[in-house]
């Protein structure tokens, strides 16, 4: 059984509360990928389209890495839902940017929670990179949708 575990994270090395936090972060990445996909229909040109593509690629890579991390720790990664609900309808460029900013914000909360639920230095680095990346993308989409201020002082702090 343990012979099949070939990930760099030793099998079963993560406590249950850590696994739970990582699963929540994975769910946030699933949501992000879905929202990015939804918004490709509304953000079709210019610098924002490039940012959209870059964000999609980044979050797909993070999803894959997070699934591997969970599998390597002996957990079964949860699966993505077929669709997600966005609080406000996405009908144009501005509402698309607003939805992206919100989804990135939710990811910052999930990844900060991972930081608070592990003593594993490598997982903390992974979570910090994800938190920082989502915070920067959140700032970009806030600015694109005209929200002020565009930057959040403490990304990932709930409430």
């Amino acid at each position, binding site marked *: 059984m343990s012979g099949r575990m070939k990930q760099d994270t030793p099998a079963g090395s993560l406590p249950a509360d850590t696994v739970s936090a990582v699963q929540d972060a994975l769910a946030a990445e699933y949501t992000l990928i879905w929202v990015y996909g939804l918004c490709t229909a509304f953000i079709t040109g210019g610098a924002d389209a490039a940012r959209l593509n870059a964000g999609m690629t980044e979050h797909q890579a993070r999803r894959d890495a997070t699934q591997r991390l969970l599998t390597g720790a002996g957990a079964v990664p949860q699966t993505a839902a077929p669709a997600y609900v966005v609080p406000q309808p996405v009908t144009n460029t501005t509402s698309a940017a607003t939805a992206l900013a919100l989804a990135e914000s939710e990811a*910052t909360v999930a*990844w*900060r*929670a991972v*930081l*608070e*639920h*592990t*003593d594993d*230095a*490598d997982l*903390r*680095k992974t*979570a*910090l990179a994800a*938190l*920082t990346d*989502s*915070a*920067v993308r*959140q*700032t*970009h989409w806030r*600015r694109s949708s005209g929200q002020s*201020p*565009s*930057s*959040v*002082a*403490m*990304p*990932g*702090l709930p409430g």
Partner: protein
Amino acid sequence: MGGLTALAVPVVGALAAGCTTKVTPPAPDELLPLLASAKKDSADATAAATAFPSDAPTFSVVAAVRSTHASALAKEITRAGGTVPGSAGPSATTTAPQAPASSEADAYSALQASLRAAQRQAAALVPTVPTYRAGLLGSVSAGCASVVEALGG
């Protein structure tokens, strides 16, 4: 006489050891340098907002973000039993305010460099601090990266 000398040495040794233990100050909180740089960024951004009124809103956002970081860091240092440099006067660890930037562009680039350094400064501690501090420092580091993005990358 020989016995007395022999007795005196261990007594002095014991006293010295006791003294050493007593006077060793607790290690300064590792968050203090982060607090100092947050205060400095906030002060520099406030000065830039005054010097360049046309860009005051942008500089004020930087000042507000770094002021929020300073408050959160000070709160945690105090919670952990440490002492925060007085806010009434200039803190002992803060160097004299740097000369005002000669142009808005200079002020921007100086702040961006400082924010990037602050991002790395907080990130460097994230792997090793207690869990209750890891989230705080993660948010401070990501907040610095966000402001750099808000300033235009």
